[in-house]
């Protein structure tokens, strides 16, 4: 099969969990990577090594370990900046996850400042967002008297941009959208939308939680009018650990926003009467940060860069195409979102006629195949397609064609089990 990662069997050996067998001695077929990815040994080792040999607080410990820990933490920031092609490393803020990064933006925009959202202003999102890119903006607009608007979706699961000029207007303060849908797999035209949003002076936020794991990102290479003002990702979907996310924001945006959480290390001088704040990125990193998680994320992104994000993207395309073909052979399968031969990400959500997604996932699990069932934190997108829930398979750089075959066979078994075959 063209496009697969070279030496896929060797790559798989980097991920110890892929060796494990489940109850009944079944091999694991992990197809839930859009939920969280598995971790290569180098990430696990980097975190253990840090805890065993370099553990200390960062930026406030005046001893050798403190210096080593600070260096490792800041080196991880450099790696993130490089991975994203960020114009400056100081624009990389560590957060708990992508949700916190989005909440940081949506909260600080409620407060006094150049980007304050108020009555009469509008925030634009899309109907295909993860709940984490809907709810923070609902909270912001409800708190400030602003209005939340959204792009609808076409029947084939793409963003309906036909009304873009009516939707993004002089009243628009923020446009926040996902690059790649976690449910439909759709890849959104963020450059076109950013260009339009910038014409009206709106801040553009891109949720790259699903994009960062599976496609190359080069912020500095984007024309400035097409470059988002902020982009968020989470570490655990990019073969890194949980507990660490990233907010990249342009220097202009991050400098204009007020601090989010107050506390240690985000300050310059504290007096009882008032305080001044640290420069970027520390202004947004109050308290002891997730140090070992940042070290793990650095190792993860170096691992992805060593494989090459172009190669990872090609692998994902090849496996996704093969999965879509396999799904098309199963009677009663209805895939939501772009189909065979179309540009899309690796998450494939589908219905199987006559079998509820929970029951599909249960039968698959009994055969070692791990998928997700439910609304995948994208209930509005499910409602748009008239479904309450779907089954979602999501491959990644370690997925093999044989695993897709096992998945398709397991779907046939689910049909048989629930008596919907023939």
């Amino acid at each position, binding site marked *: 099969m063209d496009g697969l990662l070279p030496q896929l069997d060797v790559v798989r050996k980097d991920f110890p969990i892929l060796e494990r067998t489940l*109850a009944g001695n079944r091999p694991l077929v992990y197809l839930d990577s859009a939920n969280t990815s598995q971790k290569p040994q180098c990430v696990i080792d980097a975190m253990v090594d840090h805890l065993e040999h370099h553990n200390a607080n960062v930026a406030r410990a005046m001893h050798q370990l403190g210096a080593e820990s600070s260096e490792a933490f800041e080196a991880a920031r450099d790696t993130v900046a490089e991975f994203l092609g960020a114009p400056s490393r100081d624009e990389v803020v560590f957060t708990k996850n992508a949700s916190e990064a989005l909440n940081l933006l949506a909260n600080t925009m409620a407060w006094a400042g150049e980007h304050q959202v108020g009555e009469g202003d509008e925030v634009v999102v899309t109907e295909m967002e993860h709940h984490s890119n809907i709810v923070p903006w609902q909270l912001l607009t409800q708190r400030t008297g602003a209005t939340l608007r959204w792009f609808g979706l076409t029947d084939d699961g793409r963003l309906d941009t036909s009304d873009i000029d009516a939707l993004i207007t002089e009243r628009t303060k923020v446009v926040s959208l996902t690059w790649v849908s976690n449910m439909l797999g759709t890849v959104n035209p963020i450059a076109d939308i950013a260009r339009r949003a910038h014409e009206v002076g709106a801040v553009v936020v891109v949720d790259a939680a699903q994009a960062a794991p599976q496609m190359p990102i080069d912020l500095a290479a984007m024309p400035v009018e097409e470059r988002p003002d902020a982009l968020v990702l989470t570490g655990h979907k990019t073969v890194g650990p949980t507990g660490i996310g990233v907010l990249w924001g342009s220097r202009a945006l991050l400098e204009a926003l007020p601090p989010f959480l107050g506390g240690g290390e985000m300050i310059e001088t504290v007096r009882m009467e008032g305080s001044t704040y640290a420069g970027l990125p520390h202004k947004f990193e109050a308290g002891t940060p997730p140090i070992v998680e940042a070290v793990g994320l650095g190792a993860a992104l170096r691992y992805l860069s060593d494989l090459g994000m172009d190669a990872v993207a090609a692998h994902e395309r090849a496996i996704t195409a093969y999965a879509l073909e396999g799904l098309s052979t199963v009677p009663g399968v209805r895939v939501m979102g772009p189909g065979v031969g179309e540009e899309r990400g690796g998450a494939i959500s589908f219905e199987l006629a006559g079998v*509820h997604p929970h*029951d599909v996932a*249960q039968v698959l699990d009994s055969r070692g195949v791990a998928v997700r069932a*439910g609304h995948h934190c994208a209930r509005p997108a499910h409602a748009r397609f008239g479904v*309450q829930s779907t089954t979602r398979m999501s491959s990644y750089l370690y997925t093999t064609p044989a695993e897709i075959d096992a998945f398709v066979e397991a779907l046939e078994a689910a049909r048989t089990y629930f008596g919907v075959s023939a």
Partner: protein
Amino acid sequence: MTAGGTGQDLDALYQEIILDHYKNPLHAGLREPYEAEVHHVNPTCGDEVTLRVHVAPGEDGDVVSDVSYDAVGCSISQASTSVMSDLLIGKPVAEALAVHEEFLALMQGKGAVEPDEDVLEDGVAFAGVAKFPARIKCALLGWMAWKDAVSTAGTSSTQTNGGTA
């Protein structure tokens, strides 16, 4: 029913009784009269049930005269709501609450609780669900909705056809 050594696990979960109720749910549909209507969801998967209860005075106190529902969900949640309504309709409220307790104990028993068939009848088929932590919420969706509805009905038993949202 499936190939390989995996069918047994699945069969422990999907008892024939469950699959029968799933395919032919009893007492489905929303009916009048009713004193309380509730809407419960399982936020992790989106399963939903709208459930009504009709409570009427009986010889020995209030009786669950009807349980009607409109539900969207998996085989476990659908079958469980069906079994529950069939089990509770016609029972005095106090006895129905005791059955509810028994079912709850079974679900939370991690597979170690021996179900009492005299109390739970078809409900014993759900004993296997307790060994699948991800599915316990499915089995309890309808039961929790009923408990909520019956307590709501109890506090407003002077009203009929309240049609609460």
